[in-house]
Structures are given as C-alpha cells and as structure tokens.
C-alpha cells in the first residue's frame, strides 16, 4: 500500500517485434517460412524487456535514452495504441497525447476539421469540442491558417496544433514525445508554462526527450532506457546526471 495510488502501473512489460513476421506478410514469404520452418527461426527483437515502474497520480516522469532505446514503443503502449507481448499496463485516467509530429491528423483536412476529428477520437463530446474550439485555435496561433488543409502546414504549425489539442482535452495524463523541440522559442515557452499549469492542477505528466534539460526542469522522476531495458529509475536530477555522463550505474 502506497500513500498515493499510482495512476500508471507498468508490470513486467515486454514488447516483441518479429522482424521477419512483423511486416505485412506476402504470400511467397509465407511459403518460404513454411518450408524453412525447421532451419530458420524468427528474428525476435525485444523493443522492451521486463519493464516495471509506476507513476503516482500527479507525478511527472521523464524518459531518456538513445535512439532505439524503446521510448516510443513505451509511449504507444501507454496510450493504448499498441499492446504488450507480456506483462500488464494499467493506465487510469484520460490521456492527452502528442506523439511525434502531428498526432493523428489527416493531411487533406483543414486545421479546424482536424481538431474536431482528433478531439473526438480523444473521447471529447461534441459540446466539449465546440466549447473549446476557439481556445484551441487561439493557443495554436494559427490564425487564418486554421481553415487551410494541414498538408500545407510547416512542421512547426503541425506541432502547435497537435499540442494545442492535446492540452485542451483536459488530460489527467499528458504525454508529450520530443515534439516540443520543433516549435519556435516563444511557443516553446508558452507550452512549458501551460504544462506547468496543467501539472499544478494535479495532472500527471510524461515526457520523452533527448534533452536532459527539459526532463530535469519538468519532471520529478526519470527513467533511463537502453535497448529496451530499464537502466535507472529515480530522481530526475540523479538519472539525468548519470545519463548525461553516460555512466551505467552499478547493478
């Protein structure tokens, strides 16, 4: 029994990708697999291996690690887009997420139409969305571009819109992946202020970043992943210091 009930609990989670299998499967490959079954094994790739941690309600967690560490895989498991091969994940609360550039946007739709689609997919009701529409547009600072198909947007505009939707769905858990680094300095500052505000309202916050500075300033806990394994989990400052110096802690 802990004092604060965890809002996210990840228990012995592993995620396997089968390199041979996990691409859409073509007939001649299926035949080859059948014939070579005895001699060739699937090349298993474990993007995450036996990962356990929890995040208390209102806590904030930064995830650091190099390319291919399993950070993005972990996020897609947390938002429920993908499912673990083994282990369990419990996430109890409404999630607002911005994964990579332009979370779930359709290039042919305008910014406004994408807000509708994206917010309703996040589980917002029609009345909630129409109430928040102007706030979302204001925050994104897209002005007249809001009625232009987003395939004409720059990557910075894309992120501004994605971030603006993510923070306006009243998330109990806010998940941001790198993306913020794309916006300009003013927008970054505004976003960070808003994240602080959402955090102080009691929301849980998770960020993935290459930048140790972002994690240190925004998170109280941090998690260091390397090749799918948990290297270190603890105070943000300690984990970041260890990660920055590249020294693996003594296990």
């Amino acid at each position, binding site marked *: 029994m802990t004092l604060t009930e965890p809002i996210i609990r990840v228990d012995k989670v592993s995620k396997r990708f089968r390199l041979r299998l996990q*691409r859409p499967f073509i007939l001649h490959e299926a035949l080859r697999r059948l014939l070579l079954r005895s001699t060739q094994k699937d090349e298993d790739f474990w993007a995450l291996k036996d990962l356990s941690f929890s995040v208390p309600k209102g806590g904030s967690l930064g995830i650091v690690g190099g390319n291919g560490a399993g950070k993005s895989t972990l996020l*897609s498991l947390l*938002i429920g*887009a993908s499912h673990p091969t083994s282990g369990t994940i419990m996430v109890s609360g409404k999630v607002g997420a911005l994964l990579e550039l332009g979370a779930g946007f359709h290039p*042919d739709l305008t910014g406004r139409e994408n807000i509708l689609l994206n917010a*309703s*997919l996040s589980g917002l009701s029609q009345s909630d969305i129409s109430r928040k529409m102007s706030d979302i547009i204001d925050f994104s600072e897209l002005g007249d571009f809001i009625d232009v198909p987003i395939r004409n947007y720059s990557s910075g505009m894309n992120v501004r819109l994605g971030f603006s939707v993510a923070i306006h769905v009243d998330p109990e858990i806010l998940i941001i992946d790198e993306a913020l680094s794309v916006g300009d300095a003013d927008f970054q500052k505004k976003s960070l202020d808003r994240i602080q505000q959402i955090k102080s309202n009691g929301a849980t916050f998770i960020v993935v970043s290459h930048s140790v500075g972002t994690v240190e300033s925004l998170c109280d806990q941090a998690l260091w992943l390397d090749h799918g394994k948990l290297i270190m989990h603890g105070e943000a400052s300690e984990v970041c210091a260890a990660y920055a110096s590249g020294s693996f802690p003594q296990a």
Partner: protein
Amino acid sequence: MESIHKFKYTVWNLILKDFKTQYRNMSLGVLWSVLNPLVMLGVLIIVFGYINRNAPQENFAVFLLLGMIPYNFFSLCVNSSTSSLINNSQIIKKMSFPRLIIPLSTVLAQVIHLIIQLGLLFLFVIISGIPITLSFLWLPLIFMVELLFILGVAMICSVLDVFFRDTKYIVQSILTVLFWLTPIFYSASRAHDNLPNLLYKLFMANPLAGCIEAARRAVLFNSPPEVDLFVIACIVTLASLIIGFILFRKLEKNVADYL
C-alpha cells in the same frame, strides 16, 4: 459495442472526413456519383439492349439500375473499407480507440452515394411510368440486409489487409468475378433456367443476388421477395457479420504494430 456508441460523434466526424477528402480535389464533386452509373447504364443498354438483344426486358433501364445500384454500392464499400485501416494508420498508430469505427465509418460514408443513386432510380421509375406501390416498402429492408452484409465483409477485408497486403488485389478480382456472377444485366430466372440446381443454389447464396432479385420483384412486379431466396441471403449476411466481428476482435489488438 457500448464503446462504439460512445464514439458515435467520432464516427460521424470520420464519415465527414472521408466525404470531404474524397471530393475536395474534384471540381464535379458529388456529381460523379450520378455520372458514373449513367455512363455504365448507357453502356449496358447499348450492349444488352441493342448489340446483344437477348434480354428484351420491359423497363430495361430500371431493371438494370436495380442490379447496378446494389452492386455499385457493394463494390464501392468493399474497395474503400479494405484499405481503410491502412489509410488511417496515422490516427491508429497514435491514438487508442475501438478500431472497428474505421471500417464502419468508411462504409457509412458511402451511403450518400447509395441515396443519390436511389434518387436516380426513382427518376427512371417515374419516367418509365412504373406504378409506385406498397411493395416499394420492401426496399429499405432489402438495402438494410445489403448494408449488414457489407459491414461483415468490410470487417473481414479491412483487418486481413493489414496483415496480408495481397488482400486488396484478391478483393478486386472477386469484385470483377461478382460483377458477372451477380444478376445485374440478366435476370436471376435466366440463371435458374440455365444452371444445374446445385449451382443455382450457390449462385443465389450471394446476398447481392438475393437483394437484387427481391428489389426487382418489389419494383417491377409489385410482389414480396421469394421467401427461401431472401432467407438464404439473410443467413449468409448473418454469417458474414459473425465471422467478421470475431475475426476483427481477434486481430485488432495488433493492428498498430503492422501498419
């Protein structure tokens, strides 16, 4: 299922999305929905009404439309829903929601074409001077059965296409085969007369054939569907829904990993 209900507004937004993206880049827009069948109708009338005069039907245009409209709707829905999960990979990979709403909304987005083409049908009914009778009330039921059959097929094809990308091409081939093996430009009675009984049963197990036949009886002959044929269509429809639903539920968990 209740989660689908929760996402009602999302389904509506996805329908609008499909509709807008489909026509945003075309100047004639929704008019295509009328022009396509008119061109096809003209060709079929020339081929089977003049060149190869072996189908001397009364009200041949209406007869053809009653075959083409259900087939067109089927073909449009199945084609678009087969690639629907792949086309929506951007939102599937980045958000969590019941994947079923993707093929569902893709199919529902095509209903507008059905409605427009039914309008065209009624225009031809009126021009041909066919009396509008109470038997027309069978039409909503008939198209509902077709829609349900399409949903079953859409669930199967969409989820299979993610794991097995050849599905799309297999579907296209089957649609071509179905164009000839569905009573579109000939009547089911000709199949009845010229096919061995067992093959004819197989021929009518295609719910499209059952629906087209029932629609023709209602509009052209002011009579209800033939019970056993329509029941077969309903049973096959139910089977497609059950198989589709089970298959989809079983595979949807891993869809994001394969996109």
